[in-house]
């Protein structure tokens, strides 16, 4: 369907261009650089016209257009410095620079049509944290090809670990280990958040292994159902964990709050100009944002290194053909468990950091929807592609946090009660109420037109279009996997 639509558009396009003497053949005769430049200039020009026409012109638009044009036209991909290929760092570097400096220019940006103002800093923090989670899930879904519908369990374990090690939850124990911002006489266990992040990662990885051992023997649909079950179990435990065999683990529906904030202490503040305590910092959201960016960078680094390693190849091999992988000596259970544990680790770190940012861990944050939400980020962005997954995470988090309500406000203002264009409906439409319906539509459209995601890995794209071996490794006799892991 899409192909024929595209074909029709393309034919119409060339028919128009033919009128001014530019045929398809002549166009292909130009060098690639020329073609790319012309295309970029045309598109960016259209973009600038749009910005101007919609009345949101700002002089910075010229700057943005220039940067974009340079990034598209300059053939930096092949730049080398002393034989090392530095070109591949240009684009990520530019994106990083634009991201890191966002707190300085974000509030000065003009309002966009339909979408309204640029995202607030709290939304940016959430975008980064969900990027870490989505990248974690990408190890499981994108690399190893295991469908996990209970990823929220790892987020929850991470958040509650932060609750256990950095709050007043266990008031009869008094431990202070590098925590910042404690008042005199504070009870409970208080570790430095930096340490808590590592503990949370480790504990969650352990949880991942424990959940993985019984479930990873299953394949496909069965695995998805069981992970879904585990996600729900963790949620239920969180909700009812105020009296588990007499112990109050999770404080029930109230959740654990307050959780300490991160910080570097007074010494680092005096000598290194680092914030002593994030929660009392004047630019609270900014420091949380920059720290989250560092967490994303670490996750990206680990993702890239593992992807190109022995372990990463084994994951892809299992995804492509489990039987062949096993026959080539890839231990299925161990390799899958590694994917699970790695994914869980980052889910735990992100969960603990988010809990510290929000100042608490609440069971209502760990509903099944969140699992689907994170999975949708991975699928929309492009399974297996780091940049795609980050894009998916940022975009969906933005929609969730403010995008939808902004769009809703715009719609109501123009078409709602007393709308200034034409009144189509008579009661104010609460767009965020329909968020899961909207995500559903986005996913369905993605699956129809671009099943590999917006920014796919080339291998994943090929799999979607060419298919992979989909034979099941089951014994006819027992209806169970025919081999078991030797322990």
């Amino acid at each position, binding site marked *: 369907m899409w192909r024929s639509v595209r074909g029709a558009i393309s034919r119409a396009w060339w028919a128009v261009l033919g009128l001014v003497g530019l045929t398809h053949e002549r166009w292909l005769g130009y060098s690639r650089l020329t073609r790319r430049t012309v295309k970029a200039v045309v598109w960016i020009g259209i973009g600038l016209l749009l910005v101007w026409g919609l009345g949101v012109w700002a002089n910075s638009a010229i700057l943005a257009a220039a940067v974009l044009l340079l990034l598209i036209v300059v053939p930096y991909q092949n730049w080398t410095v002393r034989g090392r290929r530095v070109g591949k760092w240009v684009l990520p570097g530019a994106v990083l620079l634009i991201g890191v400096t966002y707190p300085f220019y974000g509030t000065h940006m003009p309002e966009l049509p339909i979408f309204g103002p640029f995202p607030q800093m709290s939304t940016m923090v959430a975008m980064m944290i969900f990027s870490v989670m989505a990248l974690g899930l990408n190890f499981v879904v994108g690399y190893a090809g295991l469908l996990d519908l209970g990823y929220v369990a790892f987020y929850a374990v991470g958040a509650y670990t932060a609750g256990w090690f950095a709050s007043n939850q266990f008031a009869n124990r008094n431990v202070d280990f590098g925590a910042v911002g404690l008042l005199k006489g504070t009870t409970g266990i208080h570790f430095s958040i930096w340490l808590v992040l590592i503990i949370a990662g480790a504990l969650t990885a352990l949880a991942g292994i424990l959940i993985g051992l019984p479930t990873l023997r299953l394949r496909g649909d069965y695995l998805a159902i069981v992970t879904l079950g585990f996600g729900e179990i963790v949620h239920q435990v969180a909700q009812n964990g105020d009296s588990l065999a007499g112990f109050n683990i999770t404080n029930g529906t109230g959740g654990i709050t307050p959780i300490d904030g991160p910080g570097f202490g007074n010494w680092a503040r005096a000598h290194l100009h680092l914030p002593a305590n994030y929660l009392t910092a004047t630019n609270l959201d900014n420091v949380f944002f920059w720290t989250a960016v560092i967490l994303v960078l670490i996750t990206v680094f680990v993702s890239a*290194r593992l992807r190109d*390693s022995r372990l990463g*190849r084994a994951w892809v091999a299992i995804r492509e053909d489990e039987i062949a992988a*096993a026959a080539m000596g890839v231990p299925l259970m161990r390799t899958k468990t590694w994917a699970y544990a790695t994914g869980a680790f980052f889910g735990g770190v992100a969960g603990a950091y988010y809990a510290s940012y929000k100042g608490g861990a609440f069971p209502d944050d760990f509903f099944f929807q969140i699992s689907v939400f994170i999975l949708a980020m991975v699928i929309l962005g492009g399974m297996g592609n780091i940049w795609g997954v980050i894009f998916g995470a940022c975009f969906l988090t933005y929609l969730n946090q403010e995008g939808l309500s902004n769009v809703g406000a715009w719609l109501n203002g123009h078409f709602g009660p007393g709308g200034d264009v034409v009144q189509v409906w008579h009661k104010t439409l609460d767009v965020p109420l329909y968020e899961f319906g909207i995500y559903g539509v986005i996913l369905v459209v993605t699956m129809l037109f671009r099943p590999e995601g917006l920014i796919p890995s080339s291998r994943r794209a090929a799999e979607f279009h060419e298919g992979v071996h989909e034979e099941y490794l089951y014994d006819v006799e027992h209806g169970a996997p025919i081999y078991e892991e030797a322990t």
Partner: protein
Amino acid sequence: MSDDALLETQRLRKEFGGLVAVDDVDFTVPEGAIVSLIGPNGAGKTTFFNMLTGVYKPTSGFVFFGGENLTGKPPHTFTHRGIGRTFQNIRLFQNMTALENVLVGMHVRLKGNAFQTILRTPKAKHEESAARERGRELLEFSGLRRKDDEIGRNLSYGDQRRLEVARALATQPKLLLLDEPTAGMNPQETAEFTDFVAKLRSEQGVAVLLIEHDMRVVMGVSDRVTVLDYGEKIAEGEPKEIQKNERVIEAYLGKAAVTSS
């Protein structure tokens, strides 16, 4: 068990429900030998292969390799001990490059763990580059020179077969199991492949167990031939003897095979 046997099965049996696919087969492959397994379609050859590589668990009986009982072990243990295999219907990792396919085959021989990889320690770096070097050598040995970066799916049929062998060789096997390697090849490719099998033994020093329908390959290259029919071993011996064996002729070869040689 006999002293020089690399692989030995004792009363190996596989039942699927009421069907006996492999019926108490005793079988050996001596060190450094090229042995062929023949039989009509549905005789249980591939099922037998799958038990020799741990993909199927035998209903009863044992598989010994190098004197060690591997019965019931998972497939990667078989690979680790030194059994490499190819598949009847090619099972490459279709969307990986030729070199990556071979590198997956090296999985059991590499040691780098996740932490060394993330930190890219000198040891991990060295191991990785050595593996790539050896991968390229194996591709060249298998006749896939300069095809390192080709995606598996884009290779020609014959090259895909060769890549499967290269991938199996990357596991550093002592015994290589080839499941109908010349199926779908033209006579010239078949002849080349026959030479290649002989070269495997002389240059890589591996024993080869071959399932094959093409009698020119079987008779040309094997030291010994075993014949299965309805899961039962009906004959075993040198190619010449097998050609004359009446039960075999009746079950499988037909008169043409006798007159053509």
